[in-house]
């Protein structure tokens, strides 16, 4: 895992500061987080007894810290579900009375679980790891989405080429050149032009009304 860690995470924290939202009825955990992040400037640690969506949106935290046993977890999870564009890394504290959960979670690849009762000095590296892991996951998700979109666009271009070859009697190369010219004339990506072409061909054939 260490090899995959983004090397710049700590640098980024130092340069831009950090906003941490701690969801906990007990102020102790927020105090611990603040103590552990001493030296990060500017630093804002805000504690709420309960997760409030409006407050979270307004505060825009870099990371959310919550107890694993908090009833607010389902709400937090649903927000990630709904706002794929703006998710936040979440660090979860596990009560010490749940021995083994954190270890098992880490083994299962859930680094965001942390055993409670840790020394302030460990807070910073844990949040660092959570944030860089999160950034990595987001990047992988983004890459995957892009690969899928590229593949889809390529398929569309192939189909549009086929259509032009059939309807205009062009060879493959000629069909591609025509598509590329259309794309350049319209200032649009070739995939978009191909999709338009297919859509219009469908309308002319009566596929859609």
């Amino acid at each position, binding site marked *: 895992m260490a090899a995959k860690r983004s090397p710049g995470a700590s640098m980024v924290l130092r340069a831009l500061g950090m906003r941490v939202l701690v969801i906990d009825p007990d102020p102790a955990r927020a105090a611990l987080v603040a103590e552990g992040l001493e030296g990060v400037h500017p630093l804002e640690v805000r504690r709420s007894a309960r997760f409030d969506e409006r407050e979270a949106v307004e505060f825009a935290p870099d990371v959310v810290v919550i107890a694993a046993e908090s*009833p*607010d977890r*389902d709400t937090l*999870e649903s927000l990630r*579900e709904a706002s*794929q564009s703006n998710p936040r890394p979440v660090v979860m504290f596990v009560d010490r009375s749940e021995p*083994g959960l954190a270890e098992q*979670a880490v083994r299962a*690849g859930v680094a965001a*679980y942390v055993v409670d009762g840790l020394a302030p000095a460990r807070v910073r590296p844990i949040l660092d790891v959570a944030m860089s892991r999160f950034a990595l996951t987001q990047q992988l998700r983004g890459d995957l989405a892009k690969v899928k979109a590229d593949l889809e666009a390529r398929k569309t271009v192939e189909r549009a080429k086929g259509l032009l070859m059939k309807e205009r009697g062009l060879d493959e190369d000629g069909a591609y050149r025509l598509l590329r010219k259309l794309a350049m004339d319209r200032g649009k990506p070739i995939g978009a032009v191909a999709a338009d072409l297919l859509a219009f061909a469908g309308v002319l054939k009566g596929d859609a009304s």
Partner: protein
Amino acid sequence: MSGLADLKLGFIPLTDCAPLVVAKSMGFFAEEGLDVSLSREASWATIRDKVAVGALDGAHMLAPMALAAAAGASGGLTLDVGPSLIAPMALNRNGSAITVSKALAEAIRAADPQAMAEQPVSARALAKVIGERAGQGAAPLTFAVVFPYSMHNYELRYWLAQAGIDPDHDVRLVVTPPPRMVEQMRAGEIDGFCVGAPWNAVAEREGLGEIVITASTFWPGGPDKVFGVTEAWAHHYPDELRAALRALIRASAWADDAVNREDLIALLARPEHVGVAPEALARALTDEIVFHRDGAGVPRREHALWFLSQMVRWGQVSAGADLEAAADAVYRPDMFRAAALSAGPMLDPAQVFADAPGDLAPLFAGPAFDSDRAGPYATAFSIGRARA
């Protein structure tokens, strides 16, 4: 002694945790040689994560939560690549309901005096209220469900959309844990919710809300919770799983039996279980929730496919996903049957094989659900977010 392992099972304080609570309290687990401890959990996410990492051996679960990962849904705050969950038994049918606040119920009646009297109550009058509010520039109404992957989310969305209300645009949908629904309605933070028993009845008894439609009207005999374990656990502990399922089947039959109703209510009312007034528990246990009869324990493939169709409808899962493969990977009627048949004559064979295709009751409205065509069904609705 059988030498079987000690088990730790999780539950959420809801009426349909009954099979677990009964199996423990009535000694059915013990008679199977299992030393079970029950752990009351605070959120569905905690249940899922603890089962996935092995901190719990099994749990009371939202069926769609178990299906989500197999279908490639994006959900899962912590476990992006977790062990796969399976559902070897259904814990109940029916049980949830949609409740609106007193104020909203009055607004609905004012908009259409007949609306609340007709059965089933449709959301048409609610659509009028929403339209009027939009015209006045009022904030959208807020409705709560218990989890993005839940019967409750799909039930509320379906009911709203059936009346032309787009659940993603015309109202604000939020997630709230079941025990908090009532207090949030009292605080005026939510105007309505869809949650499992007993929380709808609690809101009504406290004079805060009115139940507009129960699951048994929405979809008679429709699916709800399951007993969930990881596939790896089922593989390593087949004897424990069979023993646990036998105890749960016995507990379900006990919980269904009207003779035991008072005892069941008293058991669930205890603070370490659901912890609400016995009267609130009684409501859904009378002619609403089914634990055992009509083969309620069989995790039916058709039910899994309906859940998956709703995940596609609302864009949680891509329309290209292999729904049948996901349903078969998670729903394991074979394990249920193996356990039920090993229980001997206790179980009427009809209860074990009561999932012949084609005998599903229809939903209260909307296109007929054909489980062989779950994909086309998912995209047949005029309101939906299906994505390629």
